[in-house]
Each structure stands twice: as C-alpha cells, then as structure tokens.
C-alpha cells in the first residue's frame, strides 16, 4: 500500500513537472534576480519608478498601456499630488459635451494612459506594417515573463552573415529572431531622477520590473495572503492529522 501510494504521488508530481507546451526554438533566457521572486517577494518601488520613466520616455512613443490608469501609480510609491501632476501632463479626449462636441482636456487620476495611436491600423501604418502590441499584460503574455522582456531589450545584435534581415532587426531572444521593433534602448535614453546610471541593462531591468507590476499588480497581496493561508492550512492539517490518529488508534 505504501508503495502504491508513493507511486501515485510520484506520478502526480511527474504530471505537474511535465513541460505542458512546446518550447519551440527559443534560446535559453538570461535569468535575472527579481525582488518579486520567491515566497515573500515584493516589488521594488525605486526600480518601478525608473521603469515608468523609461516607459514614458521611450516605449510610450509606440506602445499603449490600455489597462493601467494613472491612479494605479500609487503602487509605485507616488502620492496623490504627484499622480495628479503626472496625469495633467497628458491630454485626453473626452465628451461629447453639451454641444455634442468631443473636446480635449488634461488627464486626471481616474483616466487610463492614452494610447499613442488612435487605432490599430494607424499604429501599424506608422510602424512599418506591424502594430506595436499593448504592454499592459506583456510580462504574462510571453514565455519567460520579465526574463524574456529583459532578454528582448538587451538581445539585439548583428545578424549572422547568412540571414537577410531586410527592414527588420535581429534579436537573440525573439522567437524566429527577426523582430519589427528596432533596438529601443541605446544607453542614457533617460536621465534617472535618482541618479542611477541609465545603462541599457539598467533600463531593461527597470522597465521589465515596471511591466511585471503592470501585468500582475496584485502580486504582493497574493504572496502575503498566501503566507497567512499557508500557516492556517498547516495548523489545520496537523490538527486533523492528530484527530485522525486518535480516531483510528483503537481500530484493528
């Protein structure tokens, strides 16, 4: 019976560790150490603020961030006034007003980030035929998550001699290697407010960190809840185990 149980156990564990989908021709990603990894992982607010800066100065020229509202930036450590100020830098379309006209006004905390292009066709036509994808969920929508984003942003290199890249770029980590996005980061693309040196690696780390938050804003609450639930469950299970032992003690 023990043997059968352990057999079933091994098998069910085996099921879980099976890679459920094809890895394809992906190159091994450069695994980074993230503060949000691990049992007690949390986001690094300074890194997210820097990453947000990179998003604003670089990514947002082409990429939308549809699911994020300015008010969500409290998670990055900004206070209400700072968020109002950030939102006010943007112009959003509102309306129709009482005359039936659409009008433009300064953004407020409840607005979402305005997209750089009015629609997908416009985005595609301005970017060589391929619309830049929305970044809200990017850190969950690719195999490898933030490691993949970091890899992609730092993985541009010269194509091997036998590959004709045309008007595309060559990227070590992009599936198929030929990517429409030209290298976005060159170093010192932004001037960090906190004095951190804006190397390509630093910016890639920060913006990946920021995008992980954008994709999974409840990660900290999730892990903290998990620790509490786990403590409860372990105590509950131990009590049940003791009760079961006691109930069965007299059974022969």
């Amino acid at each position, binding site marked *: *019976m023990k043997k059968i149980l352990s057999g*079933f156990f091994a098998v*069910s564990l085996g099921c879980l560790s099976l890679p459920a*989908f094809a890895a394809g021709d992906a190159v091994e990603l450069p695994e980074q150490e993230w503060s949000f990894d691990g049992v007690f992982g949390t986001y690094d607010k300074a890194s997210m603020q820097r990453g947000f800066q990179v998003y604003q100065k670089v990514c947002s020229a082409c990429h939308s961030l549809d699911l994020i509202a300015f008010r969500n930036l409290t998670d990055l450590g900004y206070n209400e006034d700072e968020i109002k100020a950030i939102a006010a830098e943007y112009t959003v379309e509102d309306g129709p007003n009482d005359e039936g006209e659409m009008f433009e006004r300064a953004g407020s905390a409840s607005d979402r980030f305005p997209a750089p292009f009015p629609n997908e066709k416009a985005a595609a036509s301005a970017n060589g035929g391929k619309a830049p994808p929305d970044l809200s969920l990017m850190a*969950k929508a690719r195999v490898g998550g933030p490691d993949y984003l970091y890899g992609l942003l730092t993985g541009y290199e010269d194509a091997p001699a036998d590959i004709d890249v045309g008007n595309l770029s060559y990227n070590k980590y992009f599936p198929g290697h030929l990517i429409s996005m030209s290298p976005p980061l060159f170093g010192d693309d932004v001037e960090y407010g906190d004095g951190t040196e804006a190397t390509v690696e630093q910016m890639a780390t920060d913006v990946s960190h920021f995008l992980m938050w954008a994709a999974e804003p409840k990660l900290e609450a*999730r892990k903290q809840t998990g620790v509490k639930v786990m403590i409860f469950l372990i105590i509950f299970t131990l009590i049940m185990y003791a*009760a079961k032992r006691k109930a*069965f003690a007299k*059974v022969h």
Partner: protein
Amino acid sequence: MSFKSNNKVVQWVEDRLPIISVMHHSIYEYPMPKNLNYLWNFGSLAGFALVTMIVTGIILAMQYTAHVDLAFNSVERIMRDVNNGWLIRYIHMNMASFFFIAVYIHMFRGLYYGSYKAPRELLWQLGVVIFLLMMATAFMGYVLPWGQMSFWGATVITNLFSAIPIVGENIVTWLWGGFSVDNPTLNRFFALHYLLPFIIVAVVMLHLIALHTVSSNNPLGIDMKGPQDSLPMQPYYTIKDLLGVGVFLIAFSVFLFWAPNYMGHPDNYIPANPLSTPAHIVPEWYFLPFYAILRAIPDKLGGVLAMFGAIAVLFILPWLDRSPIRSCKFRPMARIFFWIFLINGLALGYLGGQPAEGVFVIASRIATAYYFFHFLVLMPFILPMIERPRELPSSIHEAVMKS
C-alpha cells in the same frame, strides 16, 4: 428507520420528510470498509473541488461580460479593480486543474483496485459521464476569457465536428451560431458553462446513490462480510476526508499563491485575434493525452473517433476485464500492466504538448495503439490466459489483523 430524536422539531420534520434519518444513515452511520487507504480520499476531494468551482464561478459570473469586445477586459477588471477578484479568479483557474488531478487519481485508483467490476458497473459508468461533462465544462470555461488560446482552442475543437460525413459542416455552423467562432459562440459557451456544473452535481448525486447501494470497494477488493470489516463514516472517514482536504489545499495553495499561471498558457493573456494564429495551439494540460490520440490518427474523422473511443472504451470496461478478482494486489500480471498503462498515459500527455512532427508523431501512434491494446486485447484475451491470481484473504478483518 431506527432514527428517533429527542428534539421535537427534528422529530416533527422527520415524521413528515425523512431527510434527517436519510442523512443520519448515509453520512453518519454509513458503514465503510475499515482498510481504505488514502487513495480513497480523492472522491471526496473531487466533490470539494466541484463545490469550490461552483461557488467561485457564480461570483465570477457576477462581474464577467460574455461579449467578444468586452470579455477579455472584464476578466482583467476582475483581476485589477474588483475587491479580491484576483483571488477568486485564480482559485477558479487553478482549482479546475486540481479538480482534474483529483479525478484522474480517483479513476486510476478505480482501475488499480478493480472498482468498476460487479456490482459497481453503473457506479463506474456514472463516473465516466461525470468525466465527460467535466471535460465539456472545462473546455467551454477556457474559452470565456477570450484570449488567443481561448479563441483558437474553440476553433480547433469545434472544427472536429466537421469530420462527420455529409452533415459535418452544417453541424459546425450550428455549433458556432454563425460562420466562424464569434459572439454567438461565446454567448452559448457561457450559458452552457454555467449550466453543466449543475448537471454534474445531479450526476454526482446518482454516483453517490449508486455508491451507497453497493458500498465502497477497498484495497483488498473483497466484500465486507460483517461489522468487524467496517467502520461507520462518522467519525472515521469524515475526519480522514478533512485531513485529505487539508493536504490537498496545501498543494493547491502553492500554485494559487506562488505560481497561479504555471498551468495556464501565456498566449491566453493576448486578446483573441481571428487574424493571427498562435505558433502552437495546445489545450489545457488535462486534455493533452486525448489531444495526442486525436492527432495520432492521420485521418481527421479517424482521429475524432479514436479520441471519443478512448473514453467510450472506459464505458464498457466492466465487461472487458473478465477476471473475477478485483484488486491488482492479487493479480501479479494485471498489476504490471497497470503501471505500463499509467506510464503510457503520461507519455500521451507529454506527446500531446509537443508539435505534431517527426518522432513525436510516431511515438503518439505507438502510445495510442497501446492505449487501445490494453483495453481491447490485453484485458479481455491475454490476461485471462497468462495470469494466475494469488489467493484472496477470507475477510477484510482477517487480512487487517495479519498485517
């Protein structure tokens, strides 16, 4: 009924509706074999998972919008703006997988200990019906977030019906409610995804009535012969089931809180796009063995028939296995072939997740052939010829005392 209560209200109800004595009889004093091992926990765990799915599902339905333009963002709104929405949605997502884990272990336990044999044939068949309903429900549930895998999974699976001769194309159009997977498809999938779990509950009730009529099988596979062989459900198996729930929830929580997307596919965080096909369309992990069987047959209709046949064969299993001995404990050959079958099933699961090319196709064909060989040739014809079962103990009590 021997049931009498000192409480006047209880007795008043009981005299008019015997619900209290029925409950007393079937979840309190109900006699169960005293030698059940922990593999007998997975039935109650599956029931626990079903209730969890229904409760979280109803809450999600209050916030979800079944429309192709709104579904994806309504799920993201649940994840971001609804209080504890992320928790409810991740529970629903991950418990679906754990429901299948519990049910697969429950089924393999039944296979190993011969729980499908007389007089438990109907009990087993009702279980197969539940399994089929679960697969339909899970498939339609996966379509609801309207991500890339939702859309393309729905397209691939509904297209299977086009393999039916002559009327196939018409059936697919009828299933879709249009000429492609679109808003009518999403709407009906939502309606059915909400309906089917309650049908599952009804079949579970029948499953339990059948169980309580024939009583539980046990690791020895011999019948209970008297009170010395059994224990009442309360407190013995209620407490053991609760211990099982505790361990199950610990394993579940590891995924829920630290790897909630591990068993999902990243592509489903990309909104559905009918103009862009993902590189590999893969179903959820619990469908992979059947997906491998589907793709192993080079002919479309043949593949569909093989896939449904893989489940249909479970339906007639009680008559394919001709050995009078239930438990593999006393069947030295059947035991070996059980493990080979299990490994073969896992191999099918692995192959279902690989691209359908090269060596994977050949391996899928071998594994598919073995799956049917096990049920259709080995069990009814070869095992009875080569196997000499070991001697059965005379009673559960005697066997327990000896060990």
